[in-house]
Each structure stands twice: as structure tokens, then as C-alpha cells.
């Protein structure tokens, strides 16, 4: 068997097993949770006959394992069922909310990388200097401040008082449903439609929550970068490079940084995955209809189809990002080949 074929087979196999495990566990948790999906549909006042009819309609009278296989069969056909609450296909709901999170998280992680990595490198190179202290404080604030407080203060200052950015929501009321939804990501849709007024408005709405998420990932990325860099900078090969008279720029970026890329990829991939999971509080404060608040609302309302659908998507993201970072390992680290 050719090595590439074996690797591909193993990768696909591990995805399948992981997904099956994920589906099974979430399904079981969904069923054993002390919540009643029937009650969430029929409401508190329903008569017993209405309750019973919905109970049968949902197939809850069948054995758990049978219910699971029915569910698995549907998922294999990309059918996550219908939301128990709003009667829409869960796949449609996810297709609507996930691009909102994807757009926000991508912009957020971009801020995090662009600012966090140089800050971490600088803090390591100038260890103990004022830059290092500032980087430490920035990270500490990022770790310890409650996100809802930072979000509200950001809204108050930049939206409420200064009027520099848009308020809660993805676009202003004048621009709701103005551009056709192609990708579900308003910035891209507006650009495709060449509607720059919508683009500008959407950008003014996303900039604050994305900066906030970016700040959180920045805090993590900069600390990890600093720590990885310090380890490299104290290595003997760096001393040798310096003794040989190599410029500091080359020492830092061509030698030390090159060797932390693989570790950084893991950190960034994990940060990105966390953002893609949806930051519930950010989404709530900014009225951002993303997957985090979708899953949370569904969970609190016992809408198990929606919870399972959302969880599968989040699980899939983690798996895909893992595979992606594995691929990047191979590119950046010859030993892993």
C-alpha cells in the first residue's frame, strides 16, 4: 500500500470514528438530560393528548438505540432534522448562523495573529523591558476581564459616546436584507454585490466585536509566542548565530521564529477553533446571531435537534482544523514527513 494512500485512509478512518463517537455521546447526553423536548414544543398549558401526540411524533417511544440509528441515518444524509422550536430544518438554521460566526471569528483571529505574534516575539527579545511589561499587562487584562464587561464598555465608548462604530447587530436597520445572501458573510456578500455602503456599515458593526475577540486571542497567542521564543533564544544555536555575527533580525526571525512555527500553528488553530465555537457572551452583547448563541438558546429550550446539529458542526470544525494543522506541520517541519 502506498504511504500516501495509507495516510489518507487512516485520516479518513479517524475522522469517521471520531465523528461517530461525537454523535453518539451528544445524542446520549441529549436524551438523558433532565429536560423535556415535548414540553418545549407544546408548552406548559398543553393537554395530555396534545403532549402524547407530539411524544409519538418525535419517536420518543422507540428504544434509545433505534432512535440513535434513525438519527445517524438522517445525519449521513445531511439531515439534522427540524428544529423542535421554530420548525425549520436545523441545517438551514446552521447555514444561516454559522457564516456570521465564521466572519467574526476569522476577523478576530486575524487581529489576534497580526498583533499577538509580533508582540510575543518583541516581548521575548526585549525580556524584562517596558515592552515586555506592557505585553504582560495586555495579556493579563485579556485573561482576567469579564468579556461582557469589556464588550459593554467598548459599546458604550465607541458606539454610545463617540459614535465611531455601529451598534449591536450585523448591519444597521437600513441595510437589513439589502444585499443577496451568497456566502452568508455580509462583508463578502456586500463586496460581491459591489454595494460599498452596506460593506462600510457591516464593517462598522463587526469591527468592535471582532476586535474584542481578537484581543482575547491576542492575549493567549502573545503569551505563548513569548514563551516559545524565550526557549529558542536561550538555545545554543542562537548563541552560535550571534557569535558568527548574524544580524539580530535574522537571528530572531530566520532562526528562532522559524523553529516555533509548528508550535504556534497549534496555538492559533486552537484559538481559532474556540472562536468558531462561538463566543456566547460576545454574541449576546452584540446581538450577533452566531452559532454560539444558537446552540445555547437551543440547549436552554431543550431543542435537541438543534443542539445536536450545532455540536456536530463544532466537532467537525475541530477535526478539520486539527487535520489542517497536521498538514501544516508536514510543510513546516521536515521531521514529520
Amino acid at each position, binding site marked *: 500500500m502506498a504511504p500516501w494512500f495509507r495516510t489518507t485512509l487512516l485520516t479518513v478512518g479517524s475522522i469517521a470514528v471520531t465523528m461517530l463517537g461525537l454523535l453518539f455521546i451528544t445524542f446520549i447526553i441529549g436524551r438523558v438530560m433532565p429536560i*423535556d423536548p415535548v414540553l418545549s414544543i407544546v408548552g406548559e398549558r398543553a393537554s*395530555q393528548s396534545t403532549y402524547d401526540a407530539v411524544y409519538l411524533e418525535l419517536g420518543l417511544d422507540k428504544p434509545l438505540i433505534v432512535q440513535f440509528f434513525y438519527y445517524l441515518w438522517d445525519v449521513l444524509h445531511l439531515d439534522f432534522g427540524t428544529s423542535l422550536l*421554530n420548525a425549520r430544518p436545523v441545517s438551514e438554521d446552521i447555514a444561516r448562523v454559522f457564516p456570521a460566526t465564521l466572519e467574526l471569528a476569522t476577523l478576530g483571529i486575524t487581529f489576534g495573529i497580526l498583533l499577538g505574534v509580533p508582540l510575543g516575539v518583541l516581548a521575548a527579545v526585549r525580556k524584562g523591558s517596558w515592552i515586555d511589561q506592557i505585553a504582560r499587562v495586555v495579556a493579563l487584562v485579556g485573561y482576567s476581564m469579564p468579556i*461582557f464587561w469589556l464588550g459593554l464598555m467598548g459599546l*458604550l465608548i465607541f458606539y454610545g459616546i463617540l459614535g465611531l462604530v455601529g*451598534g*449591536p447587530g450585523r448591519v444597521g436597520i437600513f441595510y437589513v436584507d439589502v444585499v443577496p445572501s451568497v456566502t452568508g458573510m455580509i462583508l463578502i456578500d456586500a463586496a460581491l454585490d459591489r454595494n460599498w455602503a452596506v460593506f462600510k456599515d457591516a464593517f462598522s458593526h463587526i469591527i468592535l466585536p471582532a476586535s474584542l475577540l481578537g484581543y482575547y486571542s491576542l492575549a493567549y497567542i502573545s503569551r505563548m509566542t513569548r514563551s516559545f521564543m524565550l526557549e529558542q533564544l536561550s538555545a545554543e544555536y542562537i548563541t552560535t548565530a550571534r557569535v558568527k555575527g548574524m544580524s539580530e533580525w535574522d537571528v530572531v526571525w530566520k532562526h528562532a521564529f522559524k523553529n516555533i512555527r509548528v508550535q504556534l500553528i497549534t496555538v492559533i488553530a486552537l484559538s481559532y477553533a474556540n472562536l468558531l465555537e462561538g463566543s456566547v457572551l460576545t454574541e*449576546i452583547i452584540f446581538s450577533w*446571531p452566531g452559532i454560539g448563541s444558537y446552540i445555547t438558546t437551543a440547549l436552554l*429550550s431543550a431543542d435537541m435537534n438543534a443542539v445536536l446539529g450545532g455540536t456536530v458542526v463544532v466537532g467537525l470544525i475541530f477535526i478539520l482544523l486539527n487535520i489542517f494543522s497536521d498538514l501544516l506541520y508536514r510543510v513546516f517541519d521536515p521531521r514529520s514527513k
Partner: protein
Amino acid sequence: MNALSRLLTSAALGAAVTAMAAPAVWAETPADMLVIAHRIDDVTTVDPAESFEFAGSDISRNVYSRLVNLDPLNLEAGYQPDLAESWEVSDDGRTITFTMREGVTFHSGNPVRAEDAAFSLQRAVILNKTPAFILTQFGFTPENVEETIKADGNTLTITTDKKYATSFVLNCLTATIGGIVDKELVMANAVDGDMGNEWLKTNSAGSGPYKLDGWKPNESVTMSAYEDYYGGAPEMKRVIVRHVLESASQRLLLERGDIDIARNLNPEDVSGAQSADGVVISDELKGRLMYIALNQKHPELSKPEVRQAFKYLVDYEGMRDSFLKGQYTIQQNFLPQTYLGASEENPFTYDIAKAKELLDAAGVPEGMEIEIGVREAQERIEIGQAFQNAAAQVGIKVNITVGTAKQILARYRARELDVYLGAWGPDYPDPQTNAGTFAYNPDNSDEANATGLLAWRNSWDTGGLTAQVEAAVTEGDRDTRIQMYEDIQAEFRETSPFVVMFQQIEQSALRDNVMNWSTGQAVTSAAYWQVTK
């Protein structure tokens, strides 16, 4: 967000706004557009035969006309003609014949006929969704509905199984389930005999002042004015209801002028918004009652003295004036204020000594432990904690179990909780709606499984009250009927295991150019068509 965080955030918002009192140029919504921030995550369907939650009822009220309806500018007047221009009641009091208004059209352009009205009511009975009981309580069943609800030319007749107070029947028809749908359009979208239910969950087929343009769950509801509305096209040509969960975010949007109305401000943000330029607060009494109920299966809680004692263990005024400030008023009766027959008698006060005396008389053992189920809503938990403190002073240990609505309700409906602390809102603007659940329980056995009745959920045999409720609902004379409900409530206050405590006040914060705003008080839902700016 917990109370402390809320307080800190609001304080910070207030301080910063005051400190930065620089003149700012606020945005303003267009003169013919109404933008509302509201929590709309409870909307599960917009089919009037199925819709039963608050935000869903708001949509329905503006999209669907009914046979009779309530005027948002004069709710006290009670039901008024809507699609039915007039009606007559037969001598035996069982049949009401409605004459339909001529020349009214649905949003589709189809004429509104008596046939559509008959279809709508029959459909609601046949589909038998959650709110169907509002109609089936008159004896309509899927089997007899073709006979009992009939269209004949321009008239519609409905025949109930026995004589009821006409006001009771007509009040029920003002509920969401009374929305009249466009039969042609609905049946064109019917699948597998569902009478268009699947389609109407997300689409509309009404003749009301607004057309539903779209509902994105947990995101927004958009409506546009129906220019051919028989009552005249509404002044607000577009209504956008945006789902904004966080109170502070709603307040910022309002103060910036990006929305006209904020409907879910917490008390801290209400008092903050009150001092903002261009913002006014509108108070309306709503139907929601907050109550504590004692399970009568519990050997101690079923003693009459204990039931009385618990009514003295609530610090009504203390809670109203602190963490419930502005959001609730004291109400110790099962009928909310603004309802026919509502009582203003609130005889119970916070009196630990009196409670102790009653508990001692009942022989309640010192250190008795009880479990109280509370939903994870801040105000309820705080009421629960206040109650826990009061109970501790008379030697009762209260264990609070906090859970999601579904967790706690499931146990309440199964008669498993010792004590339940929760809320109840009426379903239609007639006293029967609450009398028929708080004070009515014809079969108290477990087998009856009457989960819809609060009296049953608490295993309370209401004794003579059940017959009195049945009598009141058939009484034709309005004054006599009012007296009957007052009598029922007087006995209920003294003997029932329900400690009714508070009635909700909805505080909407509005831009000061918004006029005629109505959330429908206790009797109905929010209306947009009369709003001007």
C-alpha cells in the same frame, strides 16, 4: 449576568454617560418606520392555531384580524367588532351568529368570507395544537366542528355545547387562536393533510394591518403596512423587531436613537434611561402573576393553618420596593388587575409572628425541610431567597432547587415538588382563564393527569370552588358575574395553597416622539398599527 454584574454595568454606563455629557448628534429612525428591540427567542411558530408565546402573539395580533378584537387605544372597552360587523345570540344562549364585514381582503388580495372564518376556527380545533383548548372548552371537537362552526353566505354561526356567558365566548375569540386565515392560500400550501400548518409556521395568510415580511429566529421580525387594510393603512409603514437579548445593549441602542422602543430593560437600565434625553418610560400592567404554590400531597403543607402561614412569610412590600422595583406590583388574587372581576383586596402582610403562631397551631415540627423549585431567572431566585430567609425565622428549612424551565416544570407537572415558585399568565381576556386553572379541579386523582390545571398540579381539591367557577362561566349578567368572581377570590385568598404575590408591570422605554404605544396590558398583545411618530 448576575445582579451584581448588572448593577456594576448599569452604574458604569450611567457614570460614563453623565461624565461625557457632550452634546452628541443622535441618529434617528425614519418617521414612517418603527424599530423595536425585544427578546423574540420564544417565537416558535407564527401559525395562529399554534402560536402561544408572548413574542409570537405580538406578531399575530398585527398580522391577523379576528372576528372581534380589542382596541389598543381603548382596551377597557373590551371586545369590539373586527371582521365580524355585528352578532346576535340565540334565545337559548348557545348560538352566536356573526355577520361578516363586507369588502375586506386578505394580504393575498382574496376576499375575507365567512367561509374563511369558519375554516380558521375549525382548523384550530382539528389541528388540536397547544392553544386549542381555548376553543374546545366550548364543546367543539374535530368530529362535530363542521356542525358547530358553520358559514352560510355572509354569516358565521357557532354553537356551543351549553350556554356560556356571551362575553366569555367573545373574549376567547380575541385570543391569538381567533386569527382568521386565508383559506385558499393556506390550503394551497397544505401537505399531507396538515391544513397548511407546516407552511404557516413560518409564513402568514392574514388580513391584519401588517404583512409579515420575514421572521429570522433569534434575529428579527420584519413587517410592512398593508395599504388596503380595512381600518386604514397604518402610519408606520415598516416595523422591525430586532432580537436584542441584553438589557444594556437595548438601552444603548435607544439612547443612540437607533431604535424607537426598548422592551426588556432591567430596573437599573430603566432608571438610567429615564434620565436620558429624549427617552420616556411607559408602564403597563401585564397579566403575569408571580406565585408560590404548596403541594397538597405534603402532609404538613396541606394543613389550612400552614397554607395561611405561608401567606404571611412573604415580604411583599420589601421585594416590590427593592429588586422588583418598577417591574411588579402587589397582587394577592388570581385575577390580574384590568380583568373583569379583578379584586383589589391584598390583605396579607409580612408578619413573622403571625406565621409562627399559625405554624405552632398546626403542630408543624421545628426544623421541617421543604424543597422549593425555581426557574433560573434572577428575580425568581431572589424571591426564593427572600422566602428562604423568612421561613428560616419560623424554623422551616427551605432548600431551593434551581433549574431550567423544562426541568422544574416537568417536576411541577408531575406533582413532585413540595413548593413551586413561578409565574402564570392568562391566555385570553376573560376571568375564566385564571379561575379555570387556579380554582377549578373536578378530579384531583393522579389518574386525571390534568396537568393544565394549576390546582391539580398542586394536588388541591378546590372543594366548592369548582362548582362556583362552573357557574360563573355561564352567568349572563355582567354584574352578577363580577360578584361571583369576587366571591370566588375571597375564598381562594383564605383557603387556597397559592400564595399569589405580584403582578407584572411592563416598562417600555420609548423615544419621546413615539405616540400611542400599547403592549396590550394584561388582556392582549402589543399592537403597532395605531403608533405614530
